[in-house]
């Protein structure tokens, strides 16, 4: 599903360059649930941003579902993001003057799905994350966990090939964290490919595979026995 070869990325900090990714090789199969771990500054967020086409690599190859991702202009990148990827952020990043339903429907709007169908599909995903009754509430009227579930519903609404979650539990207490992980696991059970960036060990172990990043290189890549989040809820 995802294939990257010899990925390099450096940022210019004044006169000297900061080499963040130093040749990453990495493959993700369809249906995997991968945790990317590492301390801050290890390059895990940069990697996720490049995978999410929010940032471009300096060199290296990136293939997503057989499509080589290169020479992207903003319009093309937006189009690919919309079709291929779903994002879940640490700070939810919901649009605060839109209701939960409208937030979930947003990616579908960019796909030019007609209004009625859009709302039906958005409602279906809201129902899946258990927030059907909250559809017309604004993000400010929902709890952190509920907001993250709206964000996950939004990410899933466009039926992406890969779900990218950047510290999805970073802003949540452990009980809500587990609820969110439970949801992510369930989505994975349906066959969706998911990448989770985290620095929490327990969250990482709820995935099926953990990739450790340190100073811009992969130091360890192992399959783990998945801990079901539902056991902790």
């Amino acid at each position, binding site marked *: 599903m995802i294939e990257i070869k010899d990925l390099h990325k450096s940022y210019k900090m004044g006169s000297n360059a900061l080499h963040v990714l130093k040749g990453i090789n990495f493959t993700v199969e369809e249906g995997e649930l991968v945790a990317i771990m590492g301390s801050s500054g290890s390059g895990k967020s940069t990697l996720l*941003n490049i995978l*999410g086409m*929010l*940032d471009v690599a300096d060199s290296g190859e990136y293939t997503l579902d057989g499509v080589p991702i290169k020479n992207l202009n*903003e*319009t093309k990148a*937006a*189009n*690919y*993001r*919309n*079709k291929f990827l779903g*994002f879940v*952020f640490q700070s939810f*990043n*919901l*649009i605060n*003057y839109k209701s939960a339903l409208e937030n979930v429907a*947003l*990616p579908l*709007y*960019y*796909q030019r799905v007609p*209004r009625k169908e859009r709302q039906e599909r958005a409602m279906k995903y809201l129902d899946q994350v258990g927030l059907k009754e909250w559809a017309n509430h604004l993000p400010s009227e929902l709890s952190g966990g509920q907001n993250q579930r709206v964000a996950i519903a*939004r990410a899933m609404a*466009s039926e992406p090939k890969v779900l990218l979650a950047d510290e999805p539990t970073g802003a949540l207490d452990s009980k809500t964290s587990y609820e969110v992980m439970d949801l992510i696991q369930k989505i994975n059970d349906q066959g969706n490919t998911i990448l989770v960036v985290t620095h929490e060990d327990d969250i990482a172990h709820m995935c099926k595979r953990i990739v450790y990043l340190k100073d811009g290189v992969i130091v360890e890549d192992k399959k783990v026995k998945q801990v079901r989040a539902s056991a902790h809820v």
Partner: protein
Amino acid sequence: MFKRDRWQEIIEVLTTNWFRTVLTAFGVFWGILILIILLSAGKGLENGIKADFGDIATNTMFMWTRSTTKAHMGLPIGRRFQFKVDDVKSISENIPNLRFISPRNQLRGFGNDNNVVRGINTGAYNVYGDYPEIINQDPMTITEGRFLNQNDILEKRKIAVIGAGVRNELYDRGEEVIGSYIKIQGVNFMVVGAYKKRSSDGDGEEAQKEIFVPFTSFSQAFNMGNDVGWMAITASDGTSISSLKEDIVSLMKNRHKIHPEDTRAVGYFDLYEQYNRVESLFGAMSFIAYFVGILVLLSGIIGVSNIMLIVVKERTKEIGIRRALGEDPWSIKKQILMESIFLTIVSGMAGIIIGALFIYGVNALLDANGPVDMFLNPSVSLGVVSIALLILVLSGLLAGFIPAQSAIKVKPIDALRTE
């Protein structure tokens, strides 16, 4: 473009901060209001001054004779001469593109002894010997009976068309005019019609005190022979009389043996030239109105642009989220541009509406208090309003352009990081 969601969003964004939106809109509102008021005031002045020209055909010159100031072909200086009936024919044969050539003779009324008598009533009036065409050059409304016609000319009928002022003085109220006789310098004429002229100011009264009789009867009755007192010459539409007047004057000089360089022998007044001078004044005035109005509007537009920049700044993160979710940059740009255009058009329309109400108020005031000299019916045409709307759309685009550009300049990844 007319998607419900997009409009919903525009409204949502603009109503988030009502006070700010209204303040911003006021700049554009004010600019367009001033533009409209300036233009309508200019139009009012124009209408007022044009009304002073009355209904007279403006592409017209008047020509009369004076005494020569140069000796020529053995003829002395200071010689008096007269236009003749043949001159009229000669002009129409030699000068193309003329619409009407009206020879006129005249008995002076104003300031002279009474020259018209009816029973025991007398009065001093201007009496004209005219051809029927004169009604096209010096328009009047026939209120009763008829005006002169070609048969009157051919048969030299002694008939007269009298003005409303003449009628008031010579006739009792409600008395039958048609068929009655008036005596002009001792010659009886039968009244066949009465007229009224439209005029706005002071000389209106005198304009109603005129009597028109057929040119030929006039010549015969008052011993004019073939003399022509003066001429009113109107050029065809599309040709200005100013371009023909030199030819006409030199033709007359030629026919009357006047030195070609004698500039004073033939007198004339070019109404078209005067009219054009006034026209170009109004051109300049409307230019100034547009100039000032657009400058004021410009400051409003800068205000809109400024606020849009702030709005974009405030929404940086939201725009980042949208782009992460796959909204393409052009769509974001369009959104910002539409917000800006929407804001300018709505506030501009408000300005146009208030401006129209203001004009309406001024008109009502003018109507109530009677006419003001040189100011009449201030108004803006539909054309001006369309131009104003066009200016608004353009300025909305202009105001939104920089903010829209700055909205997509930030990379989505950076936009997402801002708090």
